């Protein structure tokens, strides 16, 4: 038996399992709480790269899986909205290599603009979904997702939540002999590598109607077969009734109900429920789509009260009811925010009274020395109407700036700003500015810029790129505009000014946001006064990232010197 005992976050457990399972490529876009998966995969020796956005990441993943390689694609919950176009048809196709899509949901919105429940995506797209309860299961389900995906040639979603991604729990990895060789180990043949080749299969991969119609039937057949497998041997854990199991002798909540009550739970909510009612029978479902309905029916038949404890929307309880299983859900108030042990106790007790308000802590703020501060001071003083976007700079909405008027989704600043300009009277329209970060601009700003040039408002428009040369919010990741790849090694660099000029933006200017003498306010005023399309790049490295960026640049310069010395040596011979 393997005695290795590691204390890992769910994110790190997924990365470790991906490495052990022979994943050939990991791709994604940074987003809390998913970001660390690819960073850890890279650190452990896996091949990981940041894509411009989640849709591109999934498309690259689909290609890699078509080539027979085990592939990992990571994103936060809202990222799957961006990738949804690819997802909904990828499930019609046959993938040869396991294609694992990690969706990291954020119930409670610790660091997100909504708390959408991505279990709906599994049902809508027809993608099998696994939901671990802790890091050990995150590790095991990463393997399982790849294995199921290869058996049925179907992409599989691993749904994590904040308390799985960022909670550390004990993991015992699979023994060495079951693991695949790491990428850089040439002494052991990588079986996945050997298997990889292009296998032409037009009807399974070219989704024109003639091929997509039978493909949709095949998808439903695959899901029916996976549902049967889930009933027969899927990852379901049943905890028997054990009244008063707490060794401290404290009476268990619900222990009086123990013979009658049965709980069905998924994800971290299963842990909260176990702790809230340790004496109660509980069925934890691991493969939550398609459901093991026969097993659930059998469990339901043995209890008098069947209670579903799930975080977020009433997805599982609705599914059970649709299948004719009498199940009790939670009061509506528990749809909002994360669950915890206290809330699980309330759900079990049927307590729908007002909950105590959580303590109000100090809200986050833009760092001291942050280059965004000067920009938001200027926008505030000019009384601009600011269409904002997603990133650190969203904090410009808080006092003392209060200089943001809209924030919806990645890239929305440009489209929303244009819409405001089209609809507002001229005097107000001329005050509208779109503010977007550098990574967000690469992610979803380019098409907005095309729209500005193609359908310019009568008053023109001004887009401000707050370029701090990193994806700051999620922990300073690289992107195509930094000129460095995920592991910070040099790569091609996308130049925003050149792109904007080539796209036909009339005025393209750059300011050094660090230059205190320069009047940012005057530059913005001057551009707003012209009824033309304008892009102003306010550039200064993030204060947190700047020291690291200097190190990366130094390392790159040294590598260049060594390369040219080696070159010279070769020429000399």
């Amino acid at each position, binding site marked *: 038996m393997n005695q290795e005992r590691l204390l890992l976050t769910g994110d790190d457990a997924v990365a470790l399992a991906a490495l052990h399972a022979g994943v050939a490529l990991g791709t994604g876009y940074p987003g*809390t709480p998913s970001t660390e998966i690819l960073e850890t995969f890279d650190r452990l020796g896996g091949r990981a790269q940041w894509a411009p956005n989640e849709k591109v990441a999934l498309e690259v993943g689909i290609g890699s899986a078509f080539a027979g390689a085990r592939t990992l694609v990571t994103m936060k919950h809202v990222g799957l909205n961006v990738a949804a176009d690819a997802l909904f048809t990828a499930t019609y196709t046959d993938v040869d290599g396991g294609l694992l899509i990690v969706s990291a949901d954020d119930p409670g919105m610790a660091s997100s603009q909504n708390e959408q429940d991505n279990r709906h995506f599994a049902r809508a797209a027809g993608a099998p979904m696994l939901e671990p309860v*802790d890091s050990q299961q995150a590790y095991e389900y990463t393997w399982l997702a790849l294995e199921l995906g290869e058996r049925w040639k179907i992409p599989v979603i691993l749904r994590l939540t904040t308390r799985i991604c960022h909670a550390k*729990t004990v993991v015992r990895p699979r023994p060495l002999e079951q693991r695949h060789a790491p990428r850089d180990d040439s002494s052991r043949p990588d079986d996945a590598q050997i298997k990889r080749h292009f296998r032409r299969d037009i009807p399974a991969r070219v989704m024109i109607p003639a091929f997509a119609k039978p493909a949709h039937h095949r998808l439903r057949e695959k899901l029916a077969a996976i549902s049967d497998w889930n009933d027969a041997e899927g990852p379901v854990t049943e905890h028997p009734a054990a009244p008063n199991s707490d060794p401290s002798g404290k009476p268990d909540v619900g222990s009086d109900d123990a013979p009658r009550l049965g709980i069905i739970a998924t994800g*971290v909510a299963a842990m909260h429920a176990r*702790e809230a009612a340790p004496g109660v029978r509980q069925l934890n479902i691991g493969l939550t789509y398609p459901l093991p309905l026969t097993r659930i029916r059998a469990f339901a038949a043995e209890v008098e009260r069947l209670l579903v404890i799930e975080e977020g929307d009433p997805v599982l309880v609705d599914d059970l009811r649709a299948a004719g299983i009498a199940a009790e859900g939670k009061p509506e108030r528990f749809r909002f925010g994360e669950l*915890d042990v206290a809330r699980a106790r309330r759900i079990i007790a049927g307590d729908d009274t007002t909950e*105590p308000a959580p*303590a109000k*802590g100090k809200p*986050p703020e833009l760092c001291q020395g942050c280059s965004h501060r000067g920009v938001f001071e200027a926008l505030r003083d000019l009384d601009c109407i600011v269409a904002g976007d997603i990133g650190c700079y969203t904090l410009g909405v808080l006092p003392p700036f209060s200089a943001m008027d809209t924030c919806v989704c990645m890239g929305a600043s440009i489209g929303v700003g244009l819409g405001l300009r089209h609809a507002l009277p001229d005097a107000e329209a001329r005050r509208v500015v779109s503010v977007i970060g550098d990574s967000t601009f690469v992610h979803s700003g380019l098409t907005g810029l095309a729209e500005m040039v193609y359908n310019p408002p009568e008053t023109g428009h001004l887009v401000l790129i707050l370029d701090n040369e990193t994806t700051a919010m999620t922990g300073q990741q690289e992107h195509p505009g930094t000129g460095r790849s995920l592991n910070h090694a040099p790569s091609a660099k996308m130049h925003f000014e050149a792109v904007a000029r080539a796209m036909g933006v009339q005025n393209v200017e750059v300011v050094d946001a660090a230059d205190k003498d320069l009047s940012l306010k005057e530059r913005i005023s001057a551009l707003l006064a012209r009824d033309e399309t304008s892009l102003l790049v306010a550039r200064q490295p993030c204060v947190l990232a700047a020291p690291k960026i200097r190190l990366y640049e130094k390392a790159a310069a040294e590598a260049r010197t060594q390369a040219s010395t080696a070159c010279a040596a070769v020429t000399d011979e």
Partner: protein
Amino acid sequence: MITNIVIAGLGGQGVVKASDILADAALAAGFDVKKSELHGMSQRGGSVTSDVRFGDPVHSPVLSPMVPAGEAHLLLVLEPTQVEVARPLLHPEGRLLSPELIEPGALKNKKSFNVAMLGALSTALEIGEDNWQQAIQANLAEKLHAINAQAFAIGRARGPGPGPGSGRGQGAR
């Protein structure tokens, strides 16, 4: 039983680092351990709390990774303004370790305050000093080992000693 510990402070103070060290030390001491906190906004100076729970792997495995509000046996606060913010997390009979334990000027480097506070906490827990030192070294760069070992010792000298929630008598070694 499970020992529930919450560490509270502001982003940038090393709350998460302190909880990483505590969790690793408890793991090395043979306990089952879970810890969790909310990342993301923590670097921007806002309030941060991190929950660490541990217990006997056989008799008291940890289930939920979060400490229920009002059930922390020990509350370690790194920043004076956060004492009242975090107090509702503490069990009525739990113990508060407030930042006043370590007077300003006691430490050579203010950045090791989080580790000094762990030193104070360590006197209330049944985790061996070797486990603590090992965890500190595993979580910090080598050049910081000496200064943090010193900070830990300074905190340990000011610790409250054993009491409720110390994890004693669990036989988890």
